């Protein structure tokens, strides 16, 4: 509802509602301030134009209203901050679901693609090593390492089951990228040298854009993947075909 009103993409993850609410409230506050303030401004210009009011008044406005408005603005900002933004952030960075309940997937960004790495049925990722990176092995996965055999690696295709928490372990091979799925209201920079967890709960079936939000070179604009949110059965079936075609 708020999303439509603000022209935001359809929300497709559980946490999006709170974020959209915050977005709506801030914009409402902004609108009220702008209209009230703008109305006053235009009225003043008309009423005190030199043609109509040739002799200015030295003392000017005597009311303390603007001070009260300033205080009210400060209070409103404080409420948004403490009531919505900080808690939302806390849950974003510290509210990670336990790994055994979640779909854990690694996303390794590179110029200009998203490498998606699933641990496979054993739930454990095989070892990756930078020396092994090659066009046919974009994440440098060591297939001979203990848990690697059943791992699934795809490019630009992120499949997820609906209504289950997802933890994306985000990293990058080269420069800074930013993992962004506007429909989930999820965005996180991938910083070289760091592995950063991102979590969300997709709750709407469909296909969504996975785009890069940080300038990463001349192909930045076409660094795009697809997130497919599907039923658990469809998801399992997809993983199996991937394993088979490996």
């Amino acid at each position, binding site marked *: 509802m708020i999303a439509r009103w603000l022209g935001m993409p359809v929300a497709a993850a559980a946490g999006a509602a709170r974020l959209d609410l915050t977005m709506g409230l801030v914009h409402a506050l902004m609108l009220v301030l702008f209209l009230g303030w703008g109305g006053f401004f235009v009225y003043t210009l008309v009423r005190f134009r030199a043609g109509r009011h040739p002799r200015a008044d030295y003392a*000017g406005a005597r009311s303390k209203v603007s001070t009260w408005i300033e205080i009210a603005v400060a209070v409103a900002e404080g409420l948004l901050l403490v009531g919505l933004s900080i808690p939302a*952030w806390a849950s974003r960075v510290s509210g990670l679901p336990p790994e055994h309940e979640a779909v854990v997937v690694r996303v390794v960004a590179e110029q200009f693609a998203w490498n998606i790495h699933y641990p496979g049925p054993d739930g454990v990722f095989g070892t990756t090593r930078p020396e092994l990176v090659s066009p046919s092995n974009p994440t440098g996965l060591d297939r001979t390492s203990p848990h690697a055999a059943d791992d699934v690696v795809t490019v630009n295709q992120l499949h997820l089951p609906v209504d289950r928490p997802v933890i994306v372990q985000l990293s990058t091979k080269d420069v800074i990228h930013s993992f962004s799925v506007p429909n989930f209201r999820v965005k996180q920079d991938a910083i070289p040298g760091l592995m950063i967890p991102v979590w969300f709960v997709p709750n709407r079936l469909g296909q969504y854009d996975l785009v890069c939000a940080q300038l990463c070179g001349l192909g930045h604009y076409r660094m795009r993947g697809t997130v497919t949110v599907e039923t658990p059965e469809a998801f399992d079936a997809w993983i199996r075909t991937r394993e088979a075609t490996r």
Partner: protein
Amino acid sequence: MTTQSSDAHAAVPPFWRRTLFSTDHKVIGIQYAITAMVFLLVGFFLMMLMRWQLAYPGRPIPLVGGLLGATRAPGGIMLPEFYNQLGAMHGTIMIFLGVVPLAVGGFGNYLVPLQIGAPDMAFPRLNLASYWAFAAGGVVMIASFFAPGGAASSGWTSYPPLADIATTGQTFWLAGMVLLITSSLLGSINFITTIVQLRAPGLSFMRLPFFVWSQLVTSFLLLLAFPPLEAAAVLQLMDRVAGTSFYLPSGLVVGGKAMAVAGGGSPLLWQHLFWFLAHPEVYVLILPAMGIVAEIIANSSRKPLWGYRLMVYSVVFLGFMSFLVWAHHMFLTGMGTTMSAFFQTTTMIISIPSVVVLSSLVVSLWGGAIRFTTPALFALAFLPMFGIGGLTGLPLGLAATDIHLHDTYYVIGHFHYVVAPGTIFALFAGVYYWFPKATGRMMNARLGAIHFWGSFVTMNLIFMPMFIQGLAGMNRRLYDAGVQDPHLQGLQPWSVLQGWSAWALGVFQLVFIVNVFWSLRKGSRVDANPWQATTLEWAATSSPPPHGNFAVIPTVRRGPYEYSVPGAPADFTPQNAI
């Protein structure tokens, strides 16, 4: 000085010394202003090219497309490499070579000594050196377009590792920045010393025109915020030319090949150092504009500023706080709750003094006798435009909403509202207002009105849709304006509208340029104080002021905005009137 003075002057130093190498702050101020306006035009031209690509992705650029060459636009069709160069250089040129030099180097240099009743800046030769360091920096920046691989292309923010591995243009960018930083440092030392030391007798700090206050705070920001960028630039330069890896962690694989560097560095180090400069820098972009607007609002409403003291405290507080908010540009780099809470809070706090200054300016109009002169039009339009810019800072400053908006067109809309219809309108207001002081002639009001209304409408048509695009999730720095992204379908008409508005905006700037040249020759002549103003540059010297500024150093007897004093003979009482 008498009418012979011009002859006497011509006899002394040759023309080129009087103009190019003069140490007179007025000459240097005008040099700065002209150079900066040329750079603004260059930056604007780069943007018009980008706008073509965004409006009509992949179509040959008309008129100039053929001139760009095969490495930039084969067959007139822009390459992504070149688009990224244009983006990075547009930002760099507009900020570091356009707005700041015009606002500080131009207006600051010309006006500060005049407004405080000083014969010149405290260090005239340093002033000259500052200008030439700036000019050299500008030459290096422009030359970078002809470096192998073209100009810098990693955004005006130059984030490594991308900037570390970019083509030679980035090295030019860094070298140019070092020169520009040097220029700013020399300038800011000069401004602060001048304001503190050379105030005329009786001109206490609380009697300073608001413009002088804004320059004082700005200078402190430049003085203290630029060195960290200089440090950051030196480190990036070392990464690029000496093979260090300050910004490169171990294990990077670029283009399928492991990078041959020692590693162990941190890409976020750059971001911290950069934004520690660059947030104060955005206040460097806005404070002088507020100063100009305050002067013009007081003058054209014929009233004292409402809450002058509070405004002064607010800008000082603003300057101080601007050192404590930098990481609100970095919420999405993996920040924990405590740090994000801290930077969100400081960001909300810093919005309060901005609100105070803005409301004081609006309330100042109440009870006035407002004259809608050309400078007044631009100064008045500044208020709602800056208002939109400031308000849209709120959802960006709240980390939760910034998740959706970060790196989208919403951010572009936000800061352009602050700097383009905001600061640049204020700068235009300043040009129209002080042109008669500098030249002795008025600018044409009819052309001024066309320039104003044309710019006002087109600016809003360009920047207002950016909020829609940003909320819809359209990212910034996209070569193809996102036409191939499924989730951005239906947004393209906005880009077309923005393109045509941008070119129309260009046409309206031609009106301004014509006006400047026409008025230089044909503008109506004015006396010392055509706006019936109170501050010293109008009340105590001729138009234009002579070398040395004042026949005798004026004595100041009152505050800066004594307009419409009850019982006074005129509706303005100059600061130096008995």
